[in-house]
């Protein structure tokens, strides 16, 4: 068998053009495992310490990944399984951990998530927590909640969704008296996005409970103090009140549906599942859904923002038109981003998520129907396949997490960093991509990427001053 010669100038020098069917080997994954999603979600509850029930490496890896993405402290504890705990179960470890955490760090609550290890053993977390309570290890007024996050099912998004659902399972209560508020389940978005969504509901004059809410937790200020449990995050009281809200807006089928459904079943709170409000049309739908759910009218301030975004789209349309884009990320983000791109006449041509779900592929094909290009989409795919597609026929722009920079450099295609994790740039914690303001930022990023490339590549004869 003859191998293709290695191009020694490439980072991904072993990626062949020829695509071979793979059934067992994942190469350059476009997802990670459930527990990290649960940890991220739990950080969005005020006074909560996430706890990883498994080997300590899981906790170390999740904290490191989240820390590198946010450049912020990420606090979490672990059951530190040994071989003994793996054989006999992790009950003793979790009991001890609960006692230590409340004694030393005094959080309001602990949010336990499992790992592949404790799931394979079959540890029963509620039983252990009950035992901890019976033994007096949970101080009065404190809570321990849990979610199951087997790493061998779904992806990090599934883990996030599971923890958000657990917030409903543990806290949402119906008093029988409706409250003039709506619930917003923002999905796995950045703290900046959560802030922006709250700003928009505020502009609408609507009281909302957002869960989880990592704003002011993972984009905190430097002020000379380290506060382990910052003032951000949804409070337990607010979570309890979600059972009395008039409705729930859940953003993203993958990250938010489970919690919205559970809340409807448990407390009869009706819900609307929307796409993440990325781009003009999805934001329109979000604003309109809030209007319909609450009966308020949309203020002029929001219409001005919308008009500003649209102004840029029309002003710069010539640069967007028929550009080919390759995207890797999580289903909810990719669906919203794809629709956004199509809405400005850019075309997602390769779309890959590591998260499984055939519904994803179907939805992307619907969004991209009418594309002048052949569209390839894969759920439970990986970046290796994505790269091979690009080698077959390139794209003008890449959108995805930091790992795409290897493809970006090898194939000389500009990259816009979006999603998780972003390990080499800042901004995502502070500048949203949701809402009209977020749309303006995305447009700016896309234009900068495209126009920088034109400036770099144009001939001396047609180098443009005004663009």
């Amino acid at each position, binding site marked *: 068998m003859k191998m293709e010669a290695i191009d020694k100038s490439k980072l991904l020098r072993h990626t062949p053009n020829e695509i071979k069917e793979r059934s067992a080997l994942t190469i350059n994954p476009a997802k990670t*495992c459930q527990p990290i999603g649960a940890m991220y979600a739990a950080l969005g509850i005020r006074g909560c310490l996430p706890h990883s029930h498994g080997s300590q490496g899981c906790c170390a890896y999740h904290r490191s990944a989240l820390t590198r993405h946010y450049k912020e402290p990420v606090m*979490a504890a672990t059951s530190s399984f040994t071989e003994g705990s793996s054989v006999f179960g992790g009950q003793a470890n979790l009991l001890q951990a609960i006692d230590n955490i409340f004694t030393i760090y005094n959080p309001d609550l602990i949010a336990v998530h499992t790992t592949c290890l404790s799931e394979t053993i079959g540890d029963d977390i509620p039983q252990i927590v009950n035992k901890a309570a019976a033994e007096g290890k949970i101080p009065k007024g404190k809570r321990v909640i849990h979610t199951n996050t087997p790493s061998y099912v779904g992806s990090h998004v599934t883990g996030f969704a599971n923890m958000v659902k657990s917030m409903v399972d543990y806290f949402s209560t119906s008093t029988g008296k409706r409250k003039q508020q709506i619930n917003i389940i923002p999905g796995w978005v950045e703290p900046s996005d959560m802030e922006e969504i709250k700003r928009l509901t505020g502009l609408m004059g609507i009281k909302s409970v957002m869960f989880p809410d990592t704003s002011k937790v993972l984009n905190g200020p430097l002020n000379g103090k380290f506060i382990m449990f910052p003032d951000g995050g949804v409070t337990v009281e607010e979570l309890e009140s979600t059972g009395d809200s008039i409705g729930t807006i859940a953003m993203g089928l993958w990250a938010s549906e489970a919690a919205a459904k559970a809340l409807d079943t448990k407390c009869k709170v009706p819900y609307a599942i929307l796409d993440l409000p990325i781009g003009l049309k999805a934001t329109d739908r979000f604003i309109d859904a809030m209007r319909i759910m609450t009966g308020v009218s949309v203020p002029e301030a929001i219409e001005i923002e919308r008009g500003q975004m649209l102004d840029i789209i029309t002003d710069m349309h010539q640069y967007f038109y028929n550009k080919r884009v390759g995207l890797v990320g999580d289903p909810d983000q990719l669906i919203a981003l794809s629709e956004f791109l199509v809405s400005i006449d850019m075309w997602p041509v390769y779309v890959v998520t590591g998260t499984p779900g055939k519904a994803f592929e179907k939805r992307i094909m619907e969004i991209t129907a009418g594309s002048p290009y052949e569209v390839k989409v894969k759920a439970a795919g990986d970046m290796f396949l994505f790269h091979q597609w690009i080698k077959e026929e390139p794209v003008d722009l890449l959108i995805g997490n930091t790992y795409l920079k290897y493809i970006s450099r090898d194939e000389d295609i500009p990259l816009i960093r979006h999603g998780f994790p972003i390990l080499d740039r800042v901004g995502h914690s502070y500048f949203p991509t949701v809402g009209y303001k977020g749309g303006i930022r995305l447009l700016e990023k896309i234009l900068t990427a495209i126009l920088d490339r034109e400036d770099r590549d144009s001939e001396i004869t047609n180098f443009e001053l005004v663009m």
Partner: protein
Amino acid sequence: MPDPVKEYMDVLDPEEFKKEVLSKYPTKVARKRAKQILINRPEGEPVQEIGANVRTIPGIITQRGCTYAGCKGVVLGPTRDIVNITHGPIGCGFYSWLTRRNQTDPSTTEDGHNFMNYCFSTDMQDENIVFGGEKKLRQAIQEAYDIFHPKAIAVFSTCPVGLIGDDVHAVTREMKEKLGINIFGFSCEGYKGVSQSAGHHIANNGIFTHVIGTDDTVKKGKYKVNLLGEYNIGGDAFEIERLFEKSGITMVSTFSGNSSIDFFANAHTADLNMIMCHRSINYVAEMMEKKYGIPWIKVNFIGAKSTAKSLRKIAQYYEDEELIARVEEVIAEEMPEVERVLEQIRPRTQGKVAMLFVGGSRAHHYQELFKEMGMIPIAAGYEFAHRDDYEGRKVLPDIKVDADSRNIEELEVHPDPVKYNPRKSPEEMEGLKKKGFEFKDYEGMMAEMPGGTLIIDDISQYETEKLIEKYKPAIFCAGIKEKFAIQKKGIPMKQLHSYDSGGPYAGFKGAINFYHEIDRMVNSKVWSYIKPPWKKNPELSARYAFVA
């Protein structure tokens, strides 16, 4: 002469600190932590014993990682031309994908193979957990072979693999036979041992069993050495390689910074093994001495003086006038620039306090650089080291093997019937020892830290906070998980696992880089902006109301 450490610590009594910290803990936890927190007494008798390499306390917020991380992430991660397949759910492979700053230069092996930018995983699904993952693993190896045609494939087991009983060794043996390339597995499930240290040991055993000694090609060169426990973070190995080349020393293999499996394969042809990170790799050196007759020495290329000392030690080992002279020339060429920079920087760093909580050797080695800058390391500890790394190898016979350590295989090694070749006769070894030359010597961290300083093993988040609150260091050195909690308090934090950015910090040029970096960090004006002007000058006046 006034003793700066004593002056500093007398004001802030470390015994008081220890008492205060322990008082926060539940009784059993306090008892355990008491053994892991010491006030250093290097000269006193009897020698202090520290609790190390013991189980992490659940819930305490440790910074430790797991066995898989030590094996796949640390030791084998930097080897560029093995296709390293993680057998397990996707996370472990994902998190260990390029997250350590190991650099590599694939141009030093002709084939140019470099798989370090790739992540390979069997991405186990629930049906693999229920019905076993061996079939998927076998298929994954086949696919890796078909696509990449690598020289070698290694398989790393994650937690569930051990529980469901997949036999990775049987699968790798079978596939090795089938495909005709070197394929081997590691049982490095995360729950083994008490930290990543167990993974280092497992990695050492695997490389020793499956790779070292498989190629007898002898490299050209008069002084052939291996460097062990150097991982080329930020290009450290490149700087050490530069110094070796300049001195006429031939590097056969590094374990494992900038390494190729080809270099491991004939590592047994070197005449001297040098250990940088004692914790992670002393096992291989011990085994190679027994099997091939290669003596080992401890070296340290962190710090200009230590670098010079280590170079001299190599020359001394060879007892060769030409090499001794050459090494002196190299040191004489390199040192003036080091001294010139130090002269500029030292007035700005002198007397400042540093803390180091990292690794199994770095918390010790980096003290050399701080000392050169006139800075005072007043507290240090390892994340995953053993007693010998603190107290020195003299305590090895006294270390009790507990249940967690017993889980890690100790290979039985005998002299190789063909390849055993003692590089030095017992008489030569004795002769060198008489001249003060030390083989396999490691005094540990505690012997080199001043009395009255704090030594803390597996420091917790709580202890870290208390430590900086009380002692307000000018700089704290640890890892990414600790970094931003410390910086929120306005104290610069330098990562010493992966250096944040920058490097190399090894060798002479590395020392200069480090002086500049620490000067930048401890003297930067950016930390002075924390208080806004209105908080510095809080008198209120109601003038605005007047104007309005």
